């Protein structure tokens, strides 16, 4: 296609949108709503993942040893644990450290009570490894493996936390996908309607084009461009809105629930947009392309 012809097709695409103002606006608005919701869900999911990731880092498995095993045996258990997949790091907690932690936790404010055990560490056999996971979903496998190790007496795990985090994460993902799929279907339907209207309005022009000897691509191009433009405009508006709204919403959440500040950390907008911007644009333009292409194939016999 020549450059002047491409320019002509592009102008016709814009013209289609102007001619079909109400339908075009409706399509752009739906597309914008769709991409806006997509953006919100995407931001929620990535931030939730980020929070879960951070929380997961704090979830530990505790591995206790059998009585009277040697330090070298304990070291070899540590090496075995490190080898397990999904393990981020392991930490050896000696009996004294365990007792210090215990005192901090349970005898806070009552140092006298702890004094009674001064010479005799009640947790003398409670030295252990704390195993921190990279991926909580692999926790069960690590626990199973640890229980089978020679010299291991007991393995404690925070099953509930791990399971809840994983399942909530999955649920948010599924719900988002379902809502986004429905919205995308609505967008495709509306773009298809707009393009159908455009074809109906231009039926006479299309017939003349065909008599004169227009190639199929030339007849179709303005409608594809119309779809692409609707998709592009429908994507760029919500992406811009979300970009500016993102920081404000986080500031608001942090101010409103200041208690969460220590637990929750949000991703910066630039980090979210590294993926959201290209995906949002591709989604918008892609839906525009699909919506118009399907319709042209169905209604525009060239």
């Amino acid at each position, binding site marked *: *296609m*020549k450059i002047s*012809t491409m320019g002509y097709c592009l102008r016709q695409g814009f013209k289609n949108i102007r001619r079909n103002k109400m339908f075009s606006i409706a399509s752009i608005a739906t597309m914008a709503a769709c991409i806006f919701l997509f953006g919100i869900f995407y931001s929620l999911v990535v931030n939730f993942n980020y929070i879960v990731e951070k929380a997961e880092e704090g979830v530990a498995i505790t591995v206790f040893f059998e009585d009277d095993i040697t330090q070298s045996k304990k070291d070899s258990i540590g090496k075995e644990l490190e080898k397990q997949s999904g393990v981020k790091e392991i930490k050896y907690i000696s009996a004294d450290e365990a007792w210090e932690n215990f005192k901090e936790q349970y005898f806070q404010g009552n140092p006298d009570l702890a004094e009674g055990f001064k010479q005799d560490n009640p947790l003398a056999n409670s030295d252990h490894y704390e195993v921190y996971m990279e991926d909580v979903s692999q926790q069960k496998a690590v626990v199973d493996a640890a229980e089978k190790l020679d010299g291991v007496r007991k393995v404690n795990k925070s099953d509930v936390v791990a399971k809840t985090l994983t399942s909530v994460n999955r649920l948010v993902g599924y719900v988002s996908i379902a809502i986004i799929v429905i919205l995308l279907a609505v967008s495709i339907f509306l773009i298809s309607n707009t393009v159908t209207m455009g074809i109906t309005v231009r039926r*006479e022009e299309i017939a*003349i084009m065909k008599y*004169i*000897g227009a*190639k199929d691509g*030339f007849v179709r191009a303005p409608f594809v461009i119309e779809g692409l433009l609707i998709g592009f405009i429908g994507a760029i508006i919500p992406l811009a809105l979300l970009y500016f709204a993102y920081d404000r919403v986080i500031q608001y959440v942090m101010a409103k629930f200041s208690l969460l500040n220590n637990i929750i950390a949000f991703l910066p907008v630039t980090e979210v947009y590294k993926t959201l911007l290209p995906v949002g644009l591709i989604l918008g333009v892609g839906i525009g392309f699909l919506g118009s292409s399907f319709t042209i194939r169905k209604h525009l016999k060239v």
Partner: protein
Amino acid sequence: MIELKDVKKEYSKGIAALNGVNLKIEQGEFVFIVGDSGSGKSTLIRLILKELEPTSGTIIVNGQNLSRMKHRKIPMYRRGIGVVFQDFRLLMDRNIYDNIAFAQRVTEKSTRIIKQKVPAALSLVGLAQKYKAFPKELSGGEQQRVAIARAIVNEPAILLADEPTGNLDPTNSWEIMKLLEEANERGTTVLVVTHNQEIVNEMKKRVITMKKGVIVSDEKKGGYKHEN
């Protein structure tokens, strides 16, 4: 140039619009196709344009067998044929210049060529001064002249006119026929489907008369008498 061999066209089973038409039109000829409504004239035009496929028989135009022509070749084939309709079929949302430029855009001509060809085509039909006017600001005759300019701007080898004077008064009808004759004099093969007895009889061109889907007469300098 145009050759039909035993061409049949049935729209629905048993009802033949064309029933074994044999026809040969040489390059540079001016031919009238006459006949009453339903005689198959318009079907003939639509077959030549490859808008319809014949039920049987062969159509050869410019040496190309239309039955064997691939879909993607149709646009290039149609670029060699100009068409004029009874109802002008101009685009009402754009001016005269753009209506004619449209034919060039569609065939992917460059802007430089368009700027040369469109004014030239408008001059040929005597509307050079009205290039900015919109179709609704023109008379029927002027609109049909624009349609002719659009049909000839791509310099087709064949010009098909389906009832070009059907909506016009006698004066305008004669002007249109004069333009078609001028195009013919420049070497274009012209096929005119018409009901207009007066014009056909006056112009003394080749006349093919059709009735119920068959050619009943084909005269070198013929005439036509409306039966209704």
